[in-house]
């Protein structure tokens, strides 16, 4: 499991725009780089990131991203979402070599 860091408030008022910052450990190997032996190091990228907001009734995709080799290693993605109701945010990363990871965070909305 890659180390991941999610930074966001734990509480918000209904209608507030909440800022979310995510970091995940991953080499984001471009597939263009020669390794120490001269051979190209195989591409190994996180391709997709998504954030789903489950507010107790439905789960909605509120943000997603497609990443390419030009995204730096240990990808940092910051975005925002509207605090609609108390619930859980689910963050998913997926990519090459079967890479998948999910983290969750709770948001209490008053």
């Amino acid at each position, binding site marked *: 499991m890659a180390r991941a860091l999610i930074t966001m408030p734990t509480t918000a008022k209904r209608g507030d725009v909440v800022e979310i910052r995510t970091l995940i450990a991953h080499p984001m190997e471009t597939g263009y780089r020669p390794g120490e032996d001269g051979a190209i190091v195989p591409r190994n990228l996180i391709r997709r990131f998504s954030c789903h907001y489950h507010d107790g009734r439905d789960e909605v995709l*509120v943000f*997603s991203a*497609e990443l390419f080799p*030009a995204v*730096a290693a240990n*990808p940092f993605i*910051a975005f925002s979402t509207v605090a609609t109701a108390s619930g859980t945010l689910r963050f998913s990363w997926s990519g090459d070599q079967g890479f998948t990871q999910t983290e969750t965070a709770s948001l209490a909305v008053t």
Partner: protein
Amino acid sequence: MKRRELIGAAVGLAGAVWVRPAAANADELAAAIAAFAGGVPVHAGRVEFEIAPLVENGNTVPITVRVQSPMNEADHVKAIAIFNQSNPQRDVANFFLGPRAGRATVSTRIRLATSQQLVAVAKMNDGSCWSHSVDVLVTLAACVEP
């Protein structure tokens, strides 16, 4: 090593570091933007591409893209795409938003192979497209690993 092998190796090496003519990259960049915009004309404006004009290390360059938009059901940003001119490929990242985003602001960190032009394109829910281009100077680190 035989002379022919040596020449072959030299050509191969030259191929690996061959820098494509700027004109070819500019065409590809225009094509990538047009493909994302779906043939709709792309206007400059409403988008702010924030990046340091001089970058200390092209491995990790912080960027923020902000699009002016109320982000309500009637008027919002659906997607923000970032393109480059001189990396091995034109795409950098695509972000998909919508009214639930609240604000059309995204940040990430990108790689820049060399000094070049970057473009952020925002696609709105009414299909219109807006962009901002920036030129970035990239310097290289000194004292690195072999």
